[in-house]
């Protein structure tokens, strides 16, 4: 309900909309990163696939973005399954590097295959002033605020369902000890593929919503290593990996300080804002590696005593 109580609507709503978008992306990342402890640095791949799928279907087949949303999730989910087959035996850094490379390959392909993707120029969502709800285009920012909020609630609901059900126990078991998980009957391959598919599909859905909100994207921004893959992982890690509220806490913390540093420190010299940003991240990892959620719990306990 926040949008109705703030005065300077446009800018704040845009920030809040992006905040919920990134919280949703971090929540979908949390399914493999948090529950299965597979630190992916390539989730931009699924984000970009979702974006290209719905936009190309809209441009060439006039398919409503709502159906494009479903198609984007299917394409991203299917790719998630394909990618998880060769990468599932990899652990730690090797998994991170393999996923990173995959997203980078997609970025190159999208840059090169101009006839389909428009190449480095990017794609624009055809503007339809009277499109409205059917084409997921709105005059004001408020509808998208609620769409992103809804997406975040859906991702969180799915995350919570997974973590409390059989598959959640299986994921935590194989995260703690894969050999022992197998020997008590858990099908590690199947469990990992299911988790990757759900995570990738949600990420693809986020990609569709983002392009409908933003109207434009190009390969370097949509498949971006730094501003998508790493940022999404960071939001979750800073907020609290494997916790329900970690992604939201991380997004509420990181995105505003990014904005703040960019607006206040950029003028002081090139790179100052990134430097300050990096120092804050290092400080948090040093103080509480389990993230801000754990830090809050620790502080409230200390205050209680």
């Amino acid at each position, binding site marked *: 309900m926040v949008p109705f109580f703030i005065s300077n609507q446009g800018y704040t709503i845009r920030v809040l909309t992006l905040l919920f978008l990134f919280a949703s992306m971090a929540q979908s990342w949390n399914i493999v990163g948090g529950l299965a402890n597979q630190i992916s640095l390539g989730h931009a791949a699924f984000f970009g696939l979702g974006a290209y799928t719905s936009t190309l279907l809209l441009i060439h087949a006039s398919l409503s973005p709502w159906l494009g949303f479903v198609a984007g999730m299917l394409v991203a989910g299917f790719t998630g399954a394909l990618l998880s087959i060769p990468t599932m035996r990899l652990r730690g850094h090797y998994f991170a590097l393999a996923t990173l490379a995959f997203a980078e390959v997609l970025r190159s392909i999208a840059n090169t295959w101009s006839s389909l993707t428009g190449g480095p120029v990017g794609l624009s969502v055809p503007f339809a002033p009277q499109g409205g709800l059917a084409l997921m285009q709105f005059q004001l920012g408020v509808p998208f605020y609620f769409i992103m909020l809804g997406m975040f609630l859906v991702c969180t609901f799915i995350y919570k369902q997974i973590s409390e059900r059989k598959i959640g*126990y*299986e994921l935590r078991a194989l995260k703690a000890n894969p050999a022992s998980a197998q020997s008590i*009957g*858990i099908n590690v391959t199947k469990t990992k593929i299911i988790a990757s598919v759900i995570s990738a599909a949600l990420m693809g859905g986020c990609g569709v919503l983002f392009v409908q909100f933003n109207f434009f994207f190009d390969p370097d921004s949509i498949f971006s290593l730094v501003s998508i893959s790493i940022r999404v992982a960071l939001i979750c890690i800073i907020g609290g990996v494997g916790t329900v509220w970690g992604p939201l806490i991380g997004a509420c913390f990181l995105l505003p300080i990014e904005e703040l540093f960019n607006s206040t420190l950029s003028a002081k010299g090139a790179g100052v804002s990134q430097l300050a940003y990096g120092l804050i991240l290092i400080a948090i990892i040093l103080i509480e590696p389990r993230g801000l959620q754990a830090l809050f719990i620790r502080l409230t306990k200390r205050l209680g005593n």
Partner: protein
Amino acid sequence: MANTQEILSTKSLTRRFGGLTVVSELDISIQPGEIVGLIGPNGAGKTTLFNLLVGLIKPSSGEVYFEGKNLRNFATHERCKMGLVKTFQNVALFSDMSVIENVLTGALQKMPLHQARDFAYENLEKVGLSHIALKNAADLTFPEKALVELARTLCTCPKLILLDEVMAALNDSEMDHILGLIQKLRSTEGLTFIVIEHHMRAIMNLCERIVVINFGKKIAEGAPAFISQHPEVIAAYLGHDS
């Protein structure tokens, strides 16, 4: 070759790591309801044999049969569903879960979550640890961890349990508790056990038959009294000069 009477058998089971043959042409045969001891010096290939039996490692050659079925194409989790399970040498609990969550995870392949929880309590009760159900697994003592792992194994509805040094680092009364428990599980639930153990008192009291391996080969097999007098076994443990 596979005798349907046997619950488990191996035929010329061999595993090489590079030039080193860790398990060599091994034939063993286990009858239902037996408690068989598996002993041998450090590095004899005992744990590798267990890993071959449950499929965590693939054999270089040879076969494993469970209830007459060749296990060659069955993954570890499928062998578990048939009733063949192992525990781990250093106890492999899921450290960020509570005791009850650890135990119920074992039951999830057989029943829905709410039933699994009740079944897990039942099995914790059997090993005498239902009072620590809500503790965090990482906070337990070693003997408690070993028992929780056993309870988790019981939740998979096993027929044959491979116990890899569950009694290491236990004092006498803790050991007696586990020994009694294994015998009770055999008589009340009809379970079969193969037990790797270094502690001679435990193995002599518990097993009716002992298989001794050294350098991956079976060097002796028989009743505890026979094994303890066997010259090759004594040589393997004490060295050839003695």
